């Protein structure tokens, strides 16, 4: 039986999950052209750092989440310096044999995929070796709200609010701030950006840190609702890529829209036919969307806008 409130909450739940899964990836893949197969493991870092600071250091949950986000951002900087931009190996190379060892992975989709796949193997097994097969979890805050025969976790409603706020924030940063414009310019044409006085190294580092930090925040936010195991990142990966790509060229807006569309489809099908059909419908919808909107949702919107203008 379909109940309106259930459906709405289910939609918010799916929407938040998709958007939060995709947020960090939208930056790292959508803006920097790096297919980060270790995206799930960045989320893992955030989730573990949050959980451990709450359970071991006794930090309040909000503070622990902040720690989780920052730790992941810092980790992202390290990955960026050592692997993605190759700055550290190249620094060593310049000083030892007088040449660069590696080429940056920016905009090299497949190569970045292999490198980050390797990284993800290292991170998952590394987490296992260091922390064991699981760590103790923190409880979910805020209790629940009840309506009629039903009740719902308040925290999951809060999550959807956070996901919307996050989208707005990221959208603002990348389209309205000077940093955002510079970052986009740097990715489009690094050489010219440098000739215009942009310290592109710093931009890359900052952008990767933001993307990683967002993945960390996702981990932090979901830590209270999931079980803490080294493979926990896996569950986010497919939704993340699908959402970002279905979104199309304007990554942030696109992620919001695909989160909305795919979330709605999943919610309706889950409510009507159960979880299995919800999931299949989500995947099928993604394929159809990509086929009929070859430039993603935002590409489609641009086309519609120009058609409308033509009509005027």
């Amino acid at each position: 039986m379909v109940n309106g409130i259930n459906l709405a909450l289910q939609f918010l739940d799916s929407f938040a999950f998709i958007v939060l899964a995709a947020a960090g990836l939208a930056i790292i893949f959508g803006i920097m052209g790096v297919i980060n197969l270790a995206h799930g493991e960045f989320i893992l870092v955030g989730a573990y750092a949050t959980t451990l600071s709450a359970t071991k250091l006794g930090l309040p949950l909000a503070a622990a989440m902040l720690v989780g986000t920052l730790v992941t951002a810092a980790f992202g900087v390290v990955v960026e310096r050592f692997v993605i931009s190759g700055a550290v190996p190249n620094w060593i190379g310049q000083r030892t044999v007088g040449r660069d060892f590696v080429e940056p992975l920016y905009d090299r989709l497949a190569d970045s995929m292999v490198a980050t796949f390797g990284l993800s193997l290292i991170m998952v097994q590394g987490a296992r070796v260091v922390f064991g097969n699981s760590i103790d979890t923190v409880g979910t805050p805020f209790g629940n709200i009840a309506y009629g025969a039903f009740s719902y976790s308040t925290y999951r409603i809060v999550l959807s609010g956070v996901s919307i706020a996050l989208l707005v924030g990221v959208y603002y940063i990348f389209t309205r701030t000077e940093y955002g414009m510079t970052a986009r310019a740097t990715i489009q044409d690094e050489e010219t950006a440098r000739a215009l006085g942009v310290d592109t190294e710093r931009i890359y580092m900052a952008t990767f840190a933001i993307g990683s930090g967002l993945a960390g925040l996702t981990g932090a936010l979901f830590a209270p609702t999931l079980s803490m195991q080294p493979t926990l990142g896996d569950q986010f990966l497919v939704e993340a890529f699908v959402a970002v790509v279905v979104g199309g060229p304007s990554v942030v807006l696109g992620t919001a829209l695909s989160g909305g569309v795919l979330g709605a489809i999943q919610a309706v099908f889950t409510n009507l036919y159960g979880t299995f059909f919800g999931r299949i419908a989500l995947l099928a919808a993604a394929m159809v969307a990509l086929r009929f909107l070859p430039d993603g949702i935002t590409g489609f919107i641009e086309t519609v806008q120009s058609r409308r203008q033509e009509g005027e």
Partner: protein
Amino acid sequence: MSESETEPESRPLGPNVRQTAAEMATGDRTDTLLQTDGLVKRFGGFTATDDVDFGVAEGELRCLIGPNGAGKSTLLKLVTGTYEASEGHIYYDGHDITDLEPHERVQRGISMKFQVPSVYGDLSVRENARLPIQRFADGAERRERVDRAIEAAGLTGYEHVDASALSHGQQQQLEIGMAASLEPDLLLLDEPVAGLDVAEREAIAERVTRLNEEEGIAFVVIEHDTDFVASIADEVTVLHNGEIFLEGPIDEVKADPAVQRIYLGEEE
């Protein structure tokens, strides 16, 4: 964009309209090779070409000039099928080709060199040159044609060099050579000499003239270098604000005060 006030409201069928749509539709052949009929291309709210009737006769060499942003490249891309027309029709060799795929248009004899050179950088000059030819020639004939194409582009000795290592001018030459080696009936060149030095410009002018005169290939050439235009073409079409502004012999067009004002500059 503001409309030019000197623009005649209704244009009589100019010399460039080779054939009416009706003639085209009934397949009555004249010597007209290409004819566009009321071609419109809009990008969003912006109209890049506006109701253009542009024609080229068999074996003709016509240059297309006009201010930056006039719609020249857009017009040629509509002809090749790179862009879909918003309105209007394109007739080629007596057939409506408006809805054909780009490769089908090429197979019918239209070939184009784009404004930005884009040879296959990772392939050698010879592999580049072979690609268009292998579609229709085999064995000894193919070898011979490839050799000739390379020689005509002045690239003998560079056969095994990666195309990305060629100079700008050499890449332009290679591109023209590849487009010409399809033995098209109509060859479209978008700014073939931009960025080339004087010697290379002359070489290309000579090449275009020879292909036109000896092989009977019809050309549409976009170029801002009016000296170059004068050296190859008799007839030019001036495009302005997406519309045909003027057509005629190069000397007359150059002397036209309106063209001087919008395009050439007063002092020329």
